[in-house]
């Protein structure tokens, strides 16, 4: 079995939620908040919320879309916001710009609705991550498979979803390592194609384990 030049170092992350002292009670205020809130707030309500709601496989994409739907009853805008796919973004600045653009366009088109009070306010939170290495590393595909099985949801989210912002690549830690250290480009691409919006974190992890096992037995 091929041994990698560099091991895959499994890590986990635990997030504190900080209250950002910013809130929105109208779409116009949401537009303003999207301009002024911190990057950690954008991260919290988009990337991190997928970890918070990892067991939902339909109808949930990010906190902004959910609030626009449930708090403001604006399904059209909610749909636009929900359709933003975080895998298309390599920086929070790009994601923030698109979120803001969608809300701004809606507010311009429907100025009265932009000022209507929501059922409940939207509170901006910030995610503060504390990274901790797990006492596990993989030099071979078999060790990698064994490590996957021991990952918590947070560790899996860290490597498979949040990693894009770290790598600044349209891939994830697993695929990056499989391709660059084990020369398994096809497996890496298959892993990267698993849809995080229609899978739970658990089912996505199981699919990766299955793909790796198939590779091991081929």
């Amino acid at each position, binding site marked *: 079995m091929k041994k990698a030049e560099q091991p895959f170092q499994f890590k986990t992350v*635990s997030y*504190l939620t900080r209250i950002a002292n910013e*809130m929105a009670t109208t779409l116009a205020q949401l537009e303003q908040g999207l301009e002024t809130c911190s990057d950690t707030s954008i991260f919290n309500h988009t990337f991190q919320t997928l970890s918070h*709601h990892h*067991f939902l496989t339909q109808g*949930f994409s990010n906190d902004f879309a959910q609030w626009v739907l449930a708090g403001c009853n604006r399904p059209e805008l909610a749909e636009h916001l929900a359709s933003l796919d975080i895998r298309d973004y390599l920086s929070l600045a790009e994601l923030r710009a698109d979120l803001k653009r969608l809300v701004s366009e809606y507010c311009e088109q429907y100025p009265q609705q932009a000022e209507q009070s929501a059922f409940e306010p939207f509170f901006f939170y910030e995610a503060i991550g504390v990274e*901790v290495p797990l006492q596990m590393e993989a030099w071979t595909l078999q060790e990698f498979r064994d490590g996957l099985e021991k990952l918590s949801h947070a560790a899996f989210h860290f490597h498979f979803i949040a990693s894009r912002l770290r790598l600044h690549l349209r891939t994830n830690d697993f695929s990056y390592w499989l391709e660059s250290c084990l020369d398994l480009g096809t497996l890496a691409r298959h892993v990267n194609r698993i849809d995080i919006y229609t899978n739970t974190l658990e089912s996505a992890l199981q699919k990766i384990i299955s793909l790796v096992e198939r590779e091991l037995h081929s």
Partner: protein
Amino acid sequence: MSETMPIPLLISLDDYTPVLGEPEVAELRTLASRLQMRTVQMVNSTAMGGGVAEMLNRLVPILQELGLAIRWEVITGGNDFYEITKAFHNALHGGPYTMPPESFETFLAYNEQNLLRLQMEAEFIVIHDPQPVALIRARRDHSGHWIWRCHIDLSHPNPTVWGFLEAWVNRYDGAIFSSAEFARHLPVPQYLFYPSIDPLSEKNRELEPEFVRGTLERFGIDPGRTILTQISRFDRLKDPLGVVRAFQIVKRYFDCQLVLAGGGASDDPEGEAVLAEVREAVGNDPDVHIINLPPWSATEINALQRGSTVIIQKSLREGFGLTVTEGLWKSKPVVASAVGGIPLQIIHKHTGLLAHSVEGTAYQIRFLLSNPAIAERLGQQGRAYVREHFLITSSAKRYLTLFLHL
């Protein structure tokens, strides 16, 4: 004066593995590995009774088992101290403050007395609620990390009392609230820590179906028919009359029973009055079961929740709403008002259904009874949401993360 609480060790962290899964428990140990023998003090004002003591009774042993050198201290005071702190509590919820101006001096004097007995030397000191807030006087030269954990809703506090407390709170390194809605604008970092339930406690542990059935029958409830349940004190803010009206609407379309179970009617004159109003509204409908429970009824509440078809929480105002958490944990579809901490737990159409009126509550219940597959999905997703965010182990993880961050 103050006392250090003995730490109960009946349940071990391994007992949570079947609930959480091995990787999640292992992750707690990994986080804690960097905090071995680091000192922590939790300080509150009561050892028994109330949600804070109940939570510390489980949280402290878990953190100790994870290797932290943790102590739980309880401050004490005379009747005058507790009269003042009760008045504080009511005023912080927005009520008037009628105690004399010297009450603030009395409050500080008791904090000072507790300080003489307590050794506030831990690296991480977590002070719970307003009663011990002035213990931060003990801090010297910015030593240790001091955090104020506020379990109550400060959204509309009486300005006199909050003005007094705020000056103390601002001396801390940070504050923790159960919801952003309950927080204040402060110059110190504020963190969101949800309250939590213990899945292994009497109120939440798994029960045998025979026990659930037997409990229902003991209260005269037919286990074979649809059961709608609200567990709450007989308190106007829980809107039991609204629940009865919603039930009466639902009953036009579905054969069902209503269970209103809770305490507060025997030791509270207003509770008695509310109970009488509910009885009058119900008349002699045999399908409504009003159960006035004593405080030691955790297992009965567990069984009533587990035996229910739909859980209701039609509060007009609410704290975090742990009865909602309990219902969700039991995989029950929940219909609840969008007040207080309830929208934090119920993501509408994902983990339950929110309502804003009696008619809305009735409509959502009818929707669930007409669509049992959706009701089941909401129940399952509600349980998954609680597992992730609202269990005592999630609280332990938040504290570990906070200590690592500070």
